[in-house]
């Protein structure tokens, strides 16, 4: 798996794609592999405020439920409604159609996130490969 270089990554296995003030958040391919078949996604409401590293939702697979943490701070401006009917998008296209939320990002809150290469090195260290 090679990770897209257009975005940044958190060690808790979320990705952030920044476009101006808007940040799109999703989970990484590694995260979806660990979760297994996703069957239900619980996301924050539009208008709610995310704190960096705070809980922002839950992803249920057939096996278990896992919390998702916000890799950046900001106000939620859009949630991926497609996941309600097709939660499996998190498995089939985690870096694309399986995005979770868009936030109006608090300036600078994406500092210290990992580049794709750094995230891949982190996974390798963790023994994930």
């Amino acid at each position: 798996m090679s990770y897209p270089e257009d975005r940044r990554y958190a060690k808790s296995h979320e990705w952030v794609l920044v476009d101006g003030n808007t940040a799109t958040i999703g989970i990484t391919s590694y995260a979806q592999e660990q979760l297994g078949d996703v069957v239900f996604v619980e996301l924050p409401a539009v208008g709610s405020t995310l704190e960096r590293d705070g809980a922002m939702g839950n992803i249920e697979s057939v096996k278990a439920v896992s919390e998702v943490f916000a890799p950046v701070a900001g106000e939620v401006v859009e949630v991926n409604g497609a996941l309600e009917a097709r939660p499996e998008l998190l498995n089939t296209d985690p870096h694309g159609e399986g995005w979770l939320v868009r936030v109006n990002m608090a300036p600078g809150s994406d500092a210290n996130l990992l580049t794709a290469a750094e995230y891949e090195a982190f996974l390798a260290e963790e023994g994930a490969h």
Partner: protein
Amino acid sequence: MRETELKRTPLYECHLAAGGKMVPFAGWEMPVQYRGVVEEHRAVRTRVGLFDVSHMGEIEVTGSRALDFLQYVTCNDVSKLTVGRAQYSGLMTPRGTFVDDLLVHKMSDRQYLLVVNAANKDKDYAYLCAQAAGFSGVEVNDRSAEWAQLAVQGPKAAAVVQRLTPARLSDIKYYHFVIEKVCGVEAILARTGYTGEDGFEIYVRPAHAPDLWDAILNAGADEEIMPCGLGARDTLRFEACMHLYGNDIDDSTTPLEAGLQWIVKFGKGPFLGREALLRQEAAGLRRKLVGLEMIGRGIARHGYPVLKDGERVGAVTSGTFSPTLQRALALAYVPTELAGEGEELDVEIREQPVRAKVIATPFYRRPR
């Protein structure tokens, strides 16, 4: 338990070769999945899957009074078994609750093989030994290290297994078994399983297990047989409402509450827990294990509270999203007066009540 202490089945290398994701389970390092839980689940419902269940415990009860002893410690009627038949039953406490649930195989008039849950094997063995101390003419032996167990499950299971054995599988009925050659080695070949599908559980000596594993995968290539892990085993048994010890039943629940009246045979004479169960039956059950379908959005999981009008009235014992039925379903203990089909309750999911209703079980019954 530290990872270094985990036991491995004789098929450990086969799991790695098949891409199995290994996890700790009941003291064993077991594959939770290979390709994915849902894909494996569907393979078993529509075609055929292969499971390593060598972690299960095998305990042998022998002697001239083996039958009397088993009649006393289990709740089902062992005298109904003929040689070559298996029976689902409960190993009972004097309170009428489960020490374990198990399969009793009648090997001969004076030899029975009990197949028990991996997590309970040591407890069961100690319990059986303690109970046997009061019986002369009974010997209890832990034979778990002498058996590997492979389960071949699904509508194509018989076709696949038939290619590997001279036994006429069409003659082996559900919950019957034979001692026969499978892949040239002696095996207990039982038409049993934990998936809600037709299938076989095959017991062989551990040394023969890897060759048998490979042979079954080869024999099932045309049927696109899939190796299946504990994840699919759990979702399959859940849809069929086959109980899981530690979730749906344990040493605080009785077979009557669990909807397993059919394994309690009061007429057979004295057995452990009989008086307690008779009292419970006479007094009326206070709670029952029921099926729930989530109406609101959310998935009920083991341990989540069940609410009625905001009051906690019970708890979920098993729950997931059913791959076959494509709905979030659960099993839960609820008060008898709230156990009727159609009753609306709430499951508390992350502090929020989510609406659910009582539905009939089993959730899934195989087409015949």
